[in-house]
């Protein structure tokens, strides 16, 4: 109980990932769903950096940087889509977007 263990970071990542999954399923507001997706991406980043540290390699840090860049792109396009939905339907409630339901 005196050294940092790999498993501490992996379990923290698992907790964060599961909270994000709960948010994606349970939230109705599209902006809040995007925030939950950010939680999931951060969980993945913790795992990448922790594995990189334990293997003494920079690959983990490099790919964490790539994931951060992709998260920025994802939020930009995602919020643009949410704005477009708001402009067309005057609502960002995901329950109202069921017109493709059979």
């Amino acid at each position, binding site marked *: 109980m*005196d050294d940092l263990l790999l498993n501490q970071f992996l379990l*923290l990542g698992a907790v964060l990932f*599961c*909270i994000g999954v709960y948010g994606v399923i349970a939230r109705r*507001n599209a902006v809040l769903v995007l925030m939950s997706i950010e939680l999931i991406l951060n969980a993945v980043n913790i795992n990448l950096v922790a594995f990189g*540290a334990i293997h003494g390699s920079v690959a983990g840090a490099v790919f964490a940087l790539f994931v951060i860049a992709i998260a*920025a792109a994802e939020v930009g*396009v995602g919020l643009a889509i*949410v704005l477009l939905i708001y402009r067309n339907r005057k609502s960002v409630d995901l329950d109202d977007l069921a017109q493709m339901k059979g």
Partner: protein
Amino acid sequence: MVAQNIFFYAIAAGITFSAVRVVTSQNVVHAALYLVAVLGGVGAQYVLLTAEFVAATQLLVYIGAIVVLFLFGIMLTRTRIGRDQELTHRAWWSGLVTALVLFGVMAYALIDEYGWSKTPLPADTRIAHVNGSNTATVSDSVFSQYLVPFEAISVLLLAALVGAIVLARKD
């Protein structure tokens, strides 16, 4: 090393609490501000893992840019500022069951594979100090070994920028 553990558990508790508030808060702006706490805590964990450059990028890109984008999104979609009862789905318990089952499976697999004593991080977790500092090593490998993915990410960011403008343009 004990100090590192104390910091780890303190920060992890803060991250977990804030993350739960992000997905349960009935106030959209509060959820965005708790997201700042989560992102800052994750940045602190990167510092514990001696990935300082990733921590700095986390602060600049996530807290500096992405959270501001979220606040703009909240403002432009005129979500009600203040308490709102309609933010959580009626069937929220299905999400809770999914998340708990998922966490059970992942925790079982992780503890079974890595245990609590088998794999300590190297006492000096500094990543490959061949070139003096971690940031120098990261930048060297981004511009040599990982040049092709780096360029692909650049093109992707440009495409996302153009796409976001095309989508959000009014005409």
